[in-house]
């Protein structure tokens, strides 16, 4: 397996949607390729960081104000 082929399957590997046979091939490539191992690990870390540090948070006060405005208009039939 080449690095190109590995990269083409990177998302499937991260999303755990590869067959056992393909997974074995990917793992075999990883054992001999530091670059792809770094790419895999840092891409996983990228997703993990964005998932655990949500940006664009909705502050509680603003959320309540928007929520009240929405529901007031719904109760009036919009």
């Amino acid at each position: 397996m080449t690095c190109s082929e590995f990269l083409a399957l990177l998302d499937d590997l991260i999303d755990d949607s590869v067959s056992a046979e393909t997974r074995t091939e990917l793992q075999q490539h990883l054992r001999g390729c530091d670059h792809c191992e770094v790419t895999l690990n840092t891409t996983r870390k990228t997703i993990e960081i964005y998932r655990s540090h949500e940006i664009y948070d909705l502050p509680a006060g603003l959320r309540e104000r928007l929520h009240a405005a929405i529901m007031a208009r719904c109760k009036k039939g919009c």
Partner: protein
Amino acid sequence: MSGTLFFCNPDNHRQLNPDDFPHPTAMATIQPIAGELEPHPDVALVERVRAGDVSAYDALVRKYDRQVFRIAQHITQNREDAEDVMQDAFLKAYQKLDQFQGNSKFYTWLVRIAVNESLMRLRKRRTGKMVSIDEDIETDEGNVPRDLADWAPDPEQNYTQAELGAILEKTIKGLPAGFRVVFELRDVQGLSTEDTAEALGLSIPAVKSRLLRARLQLRERLSRYFRMKKGSRQAKPGETRNDK
């Protein structure tokens, strides 16, 4: 390292724009989604709203308001617009609830409305210029990993919460809107590829292609902050060295 990286071009999706929002036909009751034995919990809430119970809609708003707000922020890149979009999306969904067929999930349907409202808001700001989430989509950046340095262990620990928030926001802002929304829906909110495709009006190959490019571009951009450096400090959010 061998071989030239090659990606087929699966971006054969149709463009989503404010005028091609679907107008599903009304139906009396919501059917369970094909292939799913248990109806989604939202189905019962939607049925209650249809029966006149406004408090059930309150529950749906509380369940999804943060997610809708984030999607609007990703597209409009403007907090006030995102607030307006959030309100407008929930109001429009309420008004059109009779048109919701139930062959998609309520949240998927809601996202589609929110995306549409966000695009309309952008179009207003840009004095009528057509806006789509495909804008600036043709980019080769990040398709080939260039920064191959490993990251420090728990690299986010080297920054305060405020610094980290600024880094993450600045980094994702550099991506095209179509990448940002796919990444948010798939990786942050955890939607399936199929639901993401349906919500955005994209083909499944287009979603997959954008997700891979979004992940690789974010990884590449974050590397400048998180890469392991011997004897030197890591970059701070305000620094522009190596910024694209």
